[in-house]
Every structure is written in C-alpha cells, then in structure tokens.
C-alpha cells in the first residue's frame, strides 16, 4: 500500500488488537487530524463523506446499534500509525456532505486503571502517606505529587501508564540530520522558551506525633537525700516537726502535669505513743496494843521515747501540797495523819522521723513537632542575566498525620514512628524516608520546570509511527544545533483539500548542566563504620543519594525538648525540672521555736517565783506554752515543693536538611547557542 493511505474501520469495543482486517475503509476519509499532548489521551478528528445506506439515504451516526469505536491507521511507508478511539460528542456538520467525527483514545475504564496504577505507585519515598490526609489517600492524582512523571494514555492499547517528564521510558528516537530518515523538514522548526526555569524550591513540613509513654520513677531517695536535717539521717528518712507519715502523698495524688503518685509508703521510725506507769504501795503496822500505822505511796509517770532532735520543754509544777492532821484523845493531841501531793508536766515536741518511699507514675502525652526545612536548588542554566532573579517556589503547609497513631489496617497496619516514646521521628529510618519524600516533591517541581526549551519540528512521515509520548527524541539541526528532549506532543494531519500530510513533533528540553551527585560516607560519631554497619550510628558530613541527581545529609536527632528519653530507665535526675525546695525544714523550725517559745519550766520570768512553787497558774502557763508552740509551727509549717518535667508539654524542633544541588540533564545547551 502507498504511504499516506488512511484506513478507517468501525469496530466493536472488544476489538482491541489491530489486524489486517482493520485495514479497510468503512468511511471515506476526507481529512483527519490526530494529535496528542502530554498528559492527555490522543484524539482523532476525522472528516468523512456523509455515510448513506444502499438506498442513498443518510445513516444516523448516533443511531442505536451503531458502532462507536474505530481503528484508524495511516500508512507511513515503513509502518502503520495506528489509533483506536471511541466516538465522543455529537458529530458536527451533520447535515452536510462532509461530517466531522471526533474520537478519543481514552480507556473506558480509566478510573479503574488509574486507581490500580496509583496503588502500585504508592511507594516511598515518592509517596508518603503520612503527609496525605486519610480522606485523600484514595485519590489517584495525589500519588504523582512526588514523581516527575505524568499520566500517559497509549493511543492503541489504551493502557494507562506514567511517563517521566524528562526521561522517556520507551527509548530514544534519533533525528541525526545525516541519514535520509534522520532529517527533518526545513519548515516547521521552532524553538521557544516556555518560561524561566525554577531555580529553587523552599519547602517546609511539619511532622507531628504524640510522644506516649508511661512508667514510674523512684523519687524517695532523691527527696530524702535533699531534705534538710538537723543531723545526718539514713537514706529514705526525712524529718520535720510538723510533717508526719500521715501527710505523705498517697497513691493517686497528683504530682504535676501527667504525674501522680504510683506507690508510696511512709511510717514513723519512732513510736511516740505516751505510756503511763503507775506504782502504788501501802503498809500497815499493827502495834502490840492494837494501834495501827498506815503508810501509802502512789506515783504516776507518763513516758515516751523522744525521737532524736525532739525538743523537750522544762517541767511545770501543777501541784505541790502537803497536810498533817492532828487528833486528840484522853492523853491529849497527837499527829494522826499526813498527806502530800506533787505533780509536774514536762512537754515534748517530737521530731518526726519518717521513712518514705515514693514512686511517681507518669503518663506522657506530649505533642511533638519537627519542622523540616529544605531548600533545594536546581543546577540549571540561567536564562536571566542575574541568577538571583531566578524563580523560587515555596511549598508550605505540608503536615503529617499523628505519627504515633496506626496507619492502615490488618497486616499492613503500622505506626510510622515505630515507638511512640521516641524523641525524634525525622532521624529514624522511616523519618529519613519522609525527608526523601520532601526531596522528591521539590525535585519533581525542579525537574518539571527545568524543561524550559520547547522545540517543534516536522519529521518525515516514515518516522511518525515511532512517535509516542513515552519516548525521548534527539535532533541535530543546523539552525538549533543538538537537542534532546521528551516528546510532549505530536500532530499528524491530512488536509483533504490538497492531500498534504503534516507531521509535527514537539519535545521539551531540560536546560540543566548534567552531571551526577556522589555519595559521601561521612564521619561516624560512635565507632568505625565497619564495626556496626552504616545504619547503626549517626554520622556527620554524610551524603546519601536520593538518586544520582540529588543527595542529602540524613539529620541527626537533636530534639529541642526537655531531655527525657523514655526509651531508657528514668531516674529522678532525668525528670526533675525544678529541684526540691523545703520551706521551714526542721532546722528552721527548731530555730523558730527556740526564738519564740520559752523552753524552761521552773524559772519562767516574769512569773513570780512563789507562784511556781505554788502552782496556781500552772495550767495557764501550760496552755500558753502549747499555744505558743502551735502558733510558731503554724507559721513555720514544713512545705516541700518540686516540679517534675511536664508530661503534657509540647515540643517543637527545627531541622534544616542539608541537600546537594539537583543535577538536571542537559537537553539543550543555551549557553552555546
């Protein structure tokens, strides 16, 4: 068959494979235009002679039962340029002799195909679901965010794929300008600059999680060690004139933000119970003559063990009296009886020696955020006189879901941060993948926008069958020199008026400087790399390649928090925020009492000495002494305060990720033009 002959066959939807049987003329093609642009399905506009039946009556193209699919082919001499499409819309010029039909090579199951393809593309680092709203994860368009690729619709198979915007997957079509087939037509050559290249992408992202942990910290030793004392006490023993074991915090009592008493014990080391000892004696002597003499004695003593450092107040005599009774008989008066009473009160202010334990229980729920900043610069040729004028893109608003919550379901479920006790996400292996995703986002923008030069040319018809949007094209043409670019569009058209076939191919050429980045092992911070491997310890000055175009330095964990590492066993030193402060400890209390309360008993000035010996005022003085002590202790009550690090506090840590320039291929060298 001669080159340039078009075929048109109405087919069923099931006829997805082109065969020789489709090389027929179901319609008389007057003219056609088949074109496809990047990201779109190919479409075919065919002008045909109005179809009629054998009776000469027009056939309704949209009538029921009509086939709406077609195979179109154009003989390019060396191969067939083929197109399979579906009639769309209402044919135009329907009442005229020439009818325009429009077909599109769009798969009828495009949604399902895109969904299925998108699922295969959900791989790190190009797709990071932690920065995608759960409601939008099923949106297939979202997956391409991190790829420098675009949807591609095959014009024959209608298979949906993606194609890189710089590097075509299906090979290179060469127009070397030397061979006959490698030449392009003089007319139709064009070169335009679509825009200035994107020089830099500044990107910020927030990764948030709730640092979760629970456990206990033993505080008893810390509190007792830092508790002031009149003399050295044993560990876990505190002293006070006011605080007793009953006042020690009980389980469940609050100790601060996220803290409560998990378990505690307190008991007084010394038994200060007052015990009373009574003694009585009575002796009766019966004399020979029947006379008797009776002698009685009784004593009552209150006693207690005064703990060390207790304050003892001198005795106050509350009773001191005696009396002799005389009797008279036939012989005269004689001493018949005698009685004496004596009592005194000694007062003791016991020092409480309390043996304590205190396990503080924490339940941490601390919102943590890592603010990641990346500034990625493209190594591109400047088309502006001042490179600083290069366009910069700012990507803000990238936020993660809560990284300590489970993503996914079933066996695929996982917690992004792994262990919710972690202080840093971005320094983990998963966090590094999130960094790489951010690089992928910025890199995709830079690569797409580096395709500044757009060249259109007219190849010979014999080459058009090779053209797809999944290929690159290389062209040598004296007027533009050499250029390599991604095929971003083509047009194949027949003008029925003159029978001329127009071919056009458009390529987009990146204006990078080429080259590739090199990885750097960096300096290990713990031990030689060979000892533990590269993924065990942190490094400085390390460059890990995202791909050959760009690398980055994995961030080392440097959380801007309060230093608590929930992954290790916590001690009091780890969790104390404000150290123990004791108001009115035992030393201060003792000094206050000695300054304000008289300690003696017998020589209490200004009470007259006589009144002491005859203690009518003893009860008043006892009451006064008790009141004085109570008032002093009320004003000097022991109060211990300390602050534990908050378990609800929010932390935010900035990370400025160091990245290399993005190496971009040199599709066209503007600097030599």
């Amino acid at each position, binding site marked *: 068959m001669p080159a340039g002959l078009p075929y048109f066959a109405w087919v069923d939807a099931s006829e997805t494979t082109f065969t020789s049987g489709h090389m027929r003329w179901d319609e008389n093609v007057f003219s056609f235009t088949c074109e496809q642009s990047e990201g*779109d399905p190919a*479409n075919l506009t065919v002008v045909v002679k109005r179809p009629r039946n054998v009776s000469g009556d027009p056939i309704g193209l949209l009538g029921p039962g009509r086939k709406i699919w077609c195979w179109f082919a154009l003989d390019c001499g060396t191969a067939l340029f083929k197109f399979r499409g579906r009639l769309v819309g209402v044919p135009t010029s329907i009442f005229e002799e020439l009818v325009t039909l429009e077909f599109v090579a*769009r798969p009828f199951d495009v949604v399902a195909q895109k969904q299925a393809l998108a699922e295969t593309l959900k791989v790190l680092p190009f797709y990071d679901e932690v*920065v995608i*709203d759960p409601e939008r994860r099923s949106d297939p368009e*979202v997956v391409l965010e991190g790829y420098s690729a*675009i*949807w591609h619709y095959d014009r024959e198979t209608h298979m949906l794929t993606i194609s890189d915007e710089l590097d075509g997957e299906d090979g290179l079509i060469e127009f070397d300008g030397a061979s006959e087939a490698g030449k392009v037509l003089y007319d139709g050559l064009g070169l335009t600059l679509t825009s200035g290249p994107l020089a830099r992408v500044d990107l910020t992202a*927030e990764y948030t999680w709730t640092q979760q942990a629970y456990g206990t910290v033993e505080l008893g030793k810390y509190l007792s060690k830092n508790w002031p004392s009149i003399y050295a006490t044993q560990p876990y023993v505190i002293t006070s004139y006011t*605080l007793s074991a*009953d*006042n020690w915090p009980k389980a469940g009592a*609050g*100790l601060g933000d996220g803290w409560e008493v998990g378990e505690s014990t307190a008991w007084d080391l010394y038994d200060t119970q007052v015990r009373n000892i009574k003694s009585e004696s009575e002796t009766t002597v019966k004399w020979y*003559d*029947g006379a008797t*003499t*009776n002698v*009685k*004695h*009784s*004593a*009552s*003593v*209150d006693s*207690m063990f005064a703990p060390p450092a207790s304050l003892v107040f001198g005795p106050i005599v*509350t*009773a001191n009296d005696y009396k002799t009774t005389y009797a008279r008989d*036939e*012989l005269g008066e004689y*001493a*018949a*009886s*005698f*009685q*004496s*009473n*004596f*009592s005194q*009160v*000694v*007062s*003791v202010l016991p020092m*409480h020696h309390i043996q304590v334990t205190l396990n503080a229980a924490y339940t941490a729920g601390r*919102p943590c955020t890592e603010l990641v900043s990346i500034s990625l610069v493209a190594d591109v040729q400047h088309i502006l006189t001042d490179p600083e004028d290069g366009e910069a893109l700012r990507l803000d*608003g990238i*936020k993660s879901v809560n990284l300590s919550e489970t993503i996914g379901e079933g066996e695929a479920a996982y917690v992004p941060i792994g262990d919710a006790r972690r202080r840093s996400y971005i320094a983990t292996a998963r966090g590094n993948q999130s960094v790489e995703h951010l690089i992928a986002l910025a890199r995709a923008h830079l690569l797409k926008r580096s395709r500044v030069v757009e060249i259109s040319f007219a190849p010979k018809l014999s080459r058009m069958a090779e053209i797809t949007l999944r290929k690159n094209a290389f062209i040598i043409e004296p007027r533009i020199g050499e250029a390599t670019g991604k095929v971003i569009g083509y047009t194949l058209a027949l003008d029925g008026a003159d029978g001329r076939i127009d071919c056009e191919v458009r390529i987009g050429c990146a204006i990078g400087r080429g080259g590739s980045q090199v990885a750097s092992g960096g300096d290990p911070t713990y031990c030689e790399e060979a000892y533990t491997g590269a993924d065990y310890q942190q490094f400085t000055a390390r460059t890990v390649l995202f791909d050959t175009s760009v690398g980055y330095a994995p961030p080392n964990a440097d959380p801007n928090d309060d230093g608590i590492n929930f992954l290790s066993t916590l001690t009091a030193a780890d969790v104390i925020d404000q150290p123990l402060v004791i108001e009115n400890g035992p030393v201060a209390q003792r000094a206050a009492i000695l300054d304000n309360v008289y300690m003696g008993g017998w020589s209490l000035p200004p009470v007259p000495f006589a009144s002491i010996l005859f203690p009518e005022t003893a009860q008043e003085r*006892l009451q006064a002494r008790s009141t004085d*002590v*109570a008032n002093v202790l009320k004003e000097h*009550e*022991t*109060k*211990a*305060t*300390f*602050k534990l690090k*908050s378990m609800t*506090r929010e*932390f935010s840590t900035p990370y400025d990720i160091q990245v290399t320039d993005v190496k971009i291929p040199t599709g066209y060298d503007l600097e030599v033009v």
Partner: protein
Amino acid sequence: MGFEVVVRPAVFPNIRPPAARALSIEDAPDKGIASISGGNSQLVDLTYTMSSSWSRSRMVEVIRHYDKARIYYTRPDGTLDRDQYWEFEVLRSIEFLENGTTKIGQQFAPFQELDNVEIIDRGLSRKNPDLQS
C-alpha cells in the same frame, strides 16, 4: 482539540492532614508544682504525779489486871536462897479506850508456879493514873 481534556494532576493544600492542636510550647514555671505539706503537731505533755500519806491510831490504857509473883535466887549448886528474890507484876489483861470506847486488849494465861517462882497475889488491877477521872 478533543471534548475530553485530562488536566495535569494538581495538588491542593487540602490533601494535607489538618493541623495539630496548638499548645503553648513554653512550659509555665508556676504550673505543675508538686507540694508536700501538712501536719498539725502539738506538744506532748508528760505528767508526773506522786502522792504519799500515813495515818495512825493511838490506844489509851484505862486499867490493867495482873498477878504478883516472886522469883527466888538459885545458887550455883542448884539450891534456892529464899532470902533473895525479885517480885514482878505479871500482866493478865489491859482495858483500853479507843475513840471513847472501851476495848479489852490482849489477854494472857495465868502465870504458873515453879520451884523458884511463887505467886504472891492474883487478880490485882490498877487504873491509869494519867487519866483524868
């Protein structure tokens, strides 16, 4: 140009998760303070009490009843010398007054005669001369 146009993927801000709740990053120094206090200590009074007493009763002799006896000297060879003797009043009983009431004190058995003991008189009595009649 076809009827159907597939636009390039556009990524809008609403694909991102909503912002996390905002909390104050700075910790308030005066919040979350743990405090241990309390207690109501008082003086413990220790009382010492002592009491002693004595009493006695006195008996006043009113009259005594007695026998009278004589004891002779016994020589070393065991013989009696009736020229040398001692006379004694041997108490039989005493009547006392105690608080105005007469009481009989302890009563003794009669003194028995022996070789060197002679009962001179029995049933004698004598009132207390100190008592006012």
